[in-house]
């Protein structure tokens, strides 16, 4: 069988499940280790390198890392990665000295950015230290985009936003507030070297049912309503509120309603719980606040009497579900639910009424711009899209990654390099062996369960609209939670030429990951032949070269490896070593755009 190629960037990177799942490839195990050592500022900076907003994301990130966490496969719940990020942000010292220097002499390239949200800010973060002059045009009076007006302050306090946005704006970004861009053509005429569109997906989806127009005064579009609350234009709502939709925006709407005086809030879902779009933790937080989530109710009509909204009628649905898919559905009955206000939170989409359709930016059949998935360039060279504006609603961490990638493209583009000329990710390995029985990482397996985040008591949290609900981890909770991390970045690296096939590693492995085998016809067959069959095909198996004594192969199933280092500890010949993998992620600054210098030869 073919030995596994570990020389490229992919293999060891994939083993670090959380980092692989993070769109921005944040070095999660490394910053958790720094937190464990009490080095909060260092942990913050490791975070900031890739995700730019550790304080913000430590509260509201969509956390693709957590479902991926290896811990979920040896324990029920993942490491509280997101909340540990907040620990670093909460306890760090002043980091301003550690931010990159901004050159006084600019490089003469001017970039226009539309919208002061996370994507545009990420572009500025990468380009300002290279001498660019960045100008952000923002429609509202404050920067932050959806982070500011779509995420309620009880989840994300304004001072956290101000601080982390400030680090970027203070690099010398020309931030023009209250300056909506009305015309792309006009913007292009101003002579910018490149334009980045990070204007989000600001249009909430409409629900056109009978009674919609008549009841308009009490029917609100979720994201518009949240914005109006954020700017204190809306300060109250009726006692009985129905939220239509069950995504994360719906969760923010229902919890915000409670803080504006609603007493009876129901979230109406068309489908059963397993099909909800909202993250589990957001659902839990809403339910903790006594929000009722009602499933299998499909909206039919807004009921309005004498110009006043009375409630809504719903069709009660029944579904046939096989293998997690709905195969058939039928209406069982109809029901009326009273309401004073209804908030529609059924999705949002991009809108570009300000981009002229005849200037070379192509739009697809859904009226979305055609954007390259790798370079983020539109069909008009020099115009880039990122964040929700590029491919529709995703989340903050994706927007940040779009920003990093678009910054590379912009950097190349303005220096007449092809935008596709991008550096690959690399993985560096270095041993963690300190002595015969000493490893420079904490490799003891901590059997503790995930720590519970403390919340402000229900009786107190509704008094002020912006009381942050989560209190953050205590020192004790942090100390325990960091040790739950399995150190997946400390890789088990195998040297086949040293192996004497004594089986010591196989015998000591606490999760039966290792096997020495003559091999099999193909990988599927091999997976079944291992000490414990490797049933999780999402996880790679490592196959060594032929071993010296018998020509057999060392095979490792990565699935539940604890990275405890016992294989390396037990190996009499150091054929196994524990090595820290550092994923080297290229940013704009790493791309050399200087014209080819002629090397002088001879005397």
């Amino acid at each position: 069988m073919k030995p596994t190629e570990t020389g490229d960037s992919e293999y060891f990177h994939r083993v670090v499940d959380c980092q692989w799942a993070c769109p921005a490839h944040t070095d999660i195990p490394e910053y958790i280790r720094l937190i464990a050592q009490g080095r909060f500022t260092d942990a913050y900076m490791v975070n900031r390198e890739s995700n730019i907003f550790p304080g913000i994301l430590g509260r509201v990130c969509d956390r693709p890392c957590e479902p991926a966490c290896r811990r979920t496969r040896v324990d029920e719940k993942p490491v509280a990665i997101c909340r540990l990020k907040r620990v670093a942000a909460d306890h760090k010292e002043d980091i301003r000295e550690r931010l990159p220097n901004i050159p006084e002499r600019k490089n003469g390239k001017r970039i226009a950015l539309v919208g002061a949200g996370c994507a545009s800010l990420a572009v500025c973060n990468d380009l300002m230290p290279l001498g660019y002059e960045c100008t952000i045009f923002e429609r509202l009076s404050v920067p932050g985009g959806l982070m500011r007006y779509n995420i309620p302050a009880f989840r994300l306090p304004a001072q956290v936003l101000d601080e982390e946005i400030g680090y970027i704006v203070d690099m010398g970004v020309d931030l023009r507030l209250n300056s909506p861009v009305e015309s792309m053509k006009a913007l292009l005429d101003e002579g910018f070297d490149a334009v980045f569109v990070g204007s989000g997906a600001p249009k909430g989806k409409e629900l056109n049912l009978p009674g919609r127009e008549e009841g308009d005064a009490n029917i609100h579009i979720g994201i518009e309503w949240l914005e109006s609350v954020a700017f204190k234009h809306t300060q109250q709502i009726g006692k009985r509120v129905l939220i239509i939709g069950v995504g994360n925006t719906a969760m923010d709407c229902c919890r915000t309603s409670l803080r504006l005086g609603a007493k009876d809030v129901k979230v109406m879902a068309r489908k059963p719980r397993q099909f909800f779009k909202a993250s589990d933790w957001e659902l839990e937080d809403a339910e903790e606040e006594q929000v009722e989530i009602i499933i299998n109710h499909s909206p039919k009509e807004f009921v309005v009497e004498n110009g006043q909204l009375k409630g809504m009628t719903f069709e009660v649905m029944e579904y046939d579900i096989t293998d997690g898919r709905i195969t058939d559905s039928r209406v069982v009955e109809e029901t009326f639910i009273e309401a004073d206000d209804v908030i529609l939170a059924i999705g949002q989409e991009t809108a570009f009424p300000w981009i002229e359709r005849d200037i070379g930016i192509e739009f697809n059949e859904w009226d979305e711009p055609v954007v390259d998935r790798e370079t983020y360039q539109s069909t008009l060279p020099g115009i880039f899209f990122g964040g929700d504006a590029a491919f529709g609603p995703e989340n903050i961490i994706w927007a940040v990654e779009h920003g990093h990638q678009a910054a590379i493209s912009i950097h190349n583009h303005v220096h007449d390099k092809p935008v596709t000329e991008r550096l690959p990710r690399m993985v560096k390995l270095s041993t963690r062996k300190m002595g015969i029985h000493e490893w420079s990482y904490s490799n003891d397996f901590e059997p503790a369960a995930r720590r519970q985040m403390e919340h402000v008591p229900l009786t107190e949290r509704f008094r002020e609209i912006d009381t942050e609900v989560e209190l953050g981890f205590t020192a004790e909770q942090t100390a325990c939670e960091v040790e739950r991390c399995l150190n997946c970045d400390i890789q088990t690296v195998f040297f086949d030429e040293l192996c004497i096939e004594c089986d010591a590693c196989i015998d000591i492995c606490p999760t039966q990951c290792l096997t020495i085998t003559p091999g099999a016809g193909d990988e599927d067959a091999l997976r079944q032949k291992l000490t414990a069959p490797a049933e999780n095909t999402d996880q790679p198996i490592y196959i060594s070269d032929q071993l010296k004594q018998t020509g057999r192969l060392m095979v490792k199933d990565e699935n539940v490896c604890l990275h405890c280092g016992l294989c390396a500890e037990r190996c009499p010949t150091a054929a196994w070593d524990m090595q820290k993998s550092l994923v080297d992620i290229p940013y704009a600054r790493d791309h050399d755009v200087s014209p080819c210098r002629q090397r002088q030869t001879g005397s």
Partner: protein
Amino acid sequence: MSFITKPKVQWSGQRRNPLGLTIRDYEGGMSTLCAGCGHDSVTAALVQAFWELAIKPEQVIKMSGIGCSSKTPAYFLNGAHGFNSVHGRMPSVATGALAAQRDLIAVGISGDGDSLSIGMGQFAHAVRRNINLLYIIENNGVYGLTKGQFSASADPGSKSKAGIENRQQAIDPVATAISLGGSFAARSFSGDKAQLVPLIKAGLAHPGCAVLDVISPCVTFNDHEGSTKSYAWTREHHESVNSPDLVEPADAIEASYDEGQELPVKLHDDSVIRFRKLESDYDPGDRARALEYLERHRAEGKVVTGLLYFDPNQPEFHQLSGTALQPLRDIDFERLNPGADGLEQMQKKMR
């Protein structure tokens, strides 16, 4: 050795045996043997065999003498009974334990020093009496605990780590067991669990003394060039006479055996391990041929492994002694104790 305890951890997809136990439930304490010691592999093979056979740990007694090998019982089956006895005296303790409680599943773990030097006499008589015991000899050819002097199983001509040649003759425990009239004699290699685990299972099932000599390299004192008990040497020179195949109970009834080609060994749960012949001229039922075969291959420098001699019909210790079927432990004191009069009667007979 390692200083990190093997963590207890559950994971999704972990397999359980019919008792609902995971393989980790059959483990013992943390090994303090050298990293890479063959004995740890023997431990792992024992753990695997007991787990696969779904034997309750409390049904088992594990016994040993003194030496690196004799530390092994501490590393498997935490829930079993155990006795770590005087150097070379494991068979006496085993005899006593089994005399009192004949329904115990007994494992004796010894080494080449413990059984072939100081305990040679004990070893010989345990085999002769056919005590119902799996007698494992972890054989590495050196005294590891005292820093690597040649043991009684070191081959003449093999070299110590310091380069000194061994000139004394070697005792082969398998040939010795056969010539002593043993009912089960097998050899395996710690680095070949595919063979070792089924042999352990067969030995546990065998009603009598099952001698299992396991070449178990000493990674610290006897894994160099010039050694004939190293990983590399054993791998190069070991030759299997038969290869095990497990047949599950349901199939066992149906399965037909090719008398000439296969050797079935019935286990406690009525499943059968089928040893498939690899050497066509080898018959593990023929004592004389077996000894001749061993001798011929020893002269060629080969390490013969597999189930080398097997006679399931030889009566074991309790049958030979005509003792009660009920374990003595379970018999009421009144019945067990003849009383002063009974003793008097008995003594009279002997006068």
